[in-house]
């Protein structure tokens, strides 16, 4: 993996105004792998991603790309190697898909050379990989949520960076489109050996689609590693304050988190829900051993 760029944070401290969100965090993002950052709301996962993408200037510590601080690299030069898709990017009113995706080429353009054959090729490739070529001349306003998210990913692809950071790329999408987007990211990782880092809300998706998992709580990393190695009931309890069972995902074999909750469903106490009761009896109740 030594031919790939390595992104690393050392003793990173990140804050909004005076509120410190990430305190003294060190992490190395494995190159050419998919890394998912997970954690409860307000645990600092998006903040860490923003810090890694130099959207947030660290209070202390550094973020390094192959040993060079990203804050010392010229921002446009960095943008040709490291891309970020924020949670809520803005599509200007009336912009077409091809125009929007073309704006991902900004780091490769100069004032003299605005639109080249290479730009055209990159946009064509990006549209093709995201299956949005037929939408090229359509205004982004008119697209469905799933199409729009694909177009944004196409824009990030057109940027042509080896490392792609994505902040919750599956929010606001229904389950089908969530899976489509995640499958697409796996394609990109496999085909081009791109390094992909994404913040994800859904722990099961993270276990299934990431090689490497970073679990955060209170602005610090609680555990990191292969999902199968680190995801345990204790970890989920610690990170999400959620009691759960872990079972192997019947499709992928990766860990699957099944929350317990205070009620085991609305049917659980109904006497005639025999089948459900039977199913439930296989599941140990809260605190029981598996």
């Amino acid at each position, binding site marked *: 993996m030594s031919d790939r760029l390595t992104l690393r944070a050392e003793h990173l401290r990140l804050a909004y*105004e005076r509120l410190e969100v990430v305190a003294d965090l060190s992490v190395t993002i494995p190159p050419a792998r998919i890394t998912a950052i997970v954690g409860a709301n307000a645990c600092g996962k998006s903040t860490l991603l*923003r810090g890694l*993408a*130099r*959207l947030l200037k660290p209070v202390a510590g550094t973020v390094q790309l192959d040993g060079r601080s990203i804050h010392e690299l010229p*921002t*446009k*030069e*960095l*943008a*040709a190697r490291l*891309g*970020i*898709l*924020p949670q*809520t*990017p*803005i*599509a*200007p*009113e*009336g*912009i*077409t*898909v*091809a*125009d*929007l995706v*073309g*704006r*991902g080429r*900004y*780091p490769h*353009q100069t*004032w003299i050379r*605005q*639109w080249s054959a290479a730009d*055209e*090729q990159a*946009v*064509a*490739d990006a*549209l*093709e990989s995201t*299956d*949005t*070529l*037929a*939408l*090229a*001349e359509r*205004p982004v306003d008119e697209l*469905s949520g*799933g*199409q729009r998210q*694909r177009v944004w990913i196409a824009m990030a692809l057109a*940027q042509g960076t080896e490392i792609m950071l994505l902040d919750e790329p599956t929010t606001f999408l229904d389950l*089908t*489109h969530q899976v*489509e987007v995640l499958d697409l990211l796996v394609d990109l990782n496999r085909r081009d050996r791109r390094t992909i880092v994404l913040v994800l809300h859904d722990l099961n998706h993270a276990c299934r689609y990431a090689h490497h998992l970073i679990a955060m709580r209170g602005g610090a990393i609680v555990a990191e590693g292969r999902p199968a190695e680190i995801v345990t009931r204790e970890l989920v309890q610690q990170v999400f304050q959620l009691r759960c069972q872990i079972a192997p995902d019947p499709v992928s074999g990766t860990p699957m988190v099944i929350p317990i909750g205070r009620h085991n469903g609305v049917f659980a106490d109904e006497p005639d829900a025999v089948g459900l009761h039977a199913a439930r009896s296989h599941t140990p109740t809260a605190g029981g051993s598996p």
Partner: protein
Amino acid sequence: MATADVTALPARSPREIVARAHAASRARPRRVCLVLAAATFAVFCVSVSVGDYPIALTDVIPAMLGFGDQATVIVAQDLRLPRAVNGLLVGAVLGISGAIFQAVARNPLASPDILGVLYGSAVVAILVITTIGTSFALLYGGALAGALAMGVLVYVLAYRSGVSPYRFVLVGMSLGLMASSATFVLITRADIYSAAQATVWLTGSLNSAGWETVLPTGALALVLVPATLVLSGRLRTLQLGDDLGRGLGVEVERSRLALLMAAMGLAGAGTAAAGPVAFVAFMAAPIARRLTRAPLTLVPSALTGALLVLAADLLGRRLFAPAEIPVGVITGIAGAPYLLWLLARTNRVGRGG
């Protein structure tokens, strides 16, 4: 998601599809620019042609160039032409300035007339009129400096580890209201003659526009318009949001400051030449965007602004001739319903246009 069905298209390579889409998104703005330029030229010629001493439309161009009988040439060159050129320049700089403000703030309400910039001009200009009197250089320089000072003040007060577009709009609006009140305080304390003069200036008018106004406005436009065109790549990227802009390699704060300074200079030049002509900066870019269907329209907005001012001035001159209605009254009458419509639409859609 309706999966893109590539097979339904005639067999074309992905690159051809992108090239076509790219060409298509540029073709329409180009056509619109040509039509706007032609319309502006037509109104310009009519504007030189009509008046108490009418010049036949066929004689207008020769007369502007100095051919024809002496009286016609004098009326065209010394009276009508400077007024028309001023109208053209004022409209163009206000139009492009509004387009930049709205794109930087990502808000159709953010234009130098809705924000305080034009009133910054007005305060200083009225101060000059009511205390020193009518020195052209002082009036022009004061109005320009007032716009820039107001712009800087809005920027500084809205700054909190970076300027959020939303805060910029709110600070701008409140400072604009304060400045507009200040101009009225100045007017009520002035003597009746300079108060009347100040009121005329405040309305926005091309009555007194001569070649001496064309010179500084033209020079400022000649410097600032190319500067904004150089910065337009950054502006295009900034339109996607601060985070994405930074991620794509734009120095967000520095670019925003440069763009706003240029836009303030342009707004100041327009106001210094004709007073705060209402709603031109506010309306030009949205009209241009609807015509071109493009997300960023600098040149089309300049052309739209020029057309608006020239047409409004022509209307104001001819509607109750020989009495003249100042151009600012006409644009104000046209712009107010648009503002109301925009506010109503913003409430309904729940976003800034």
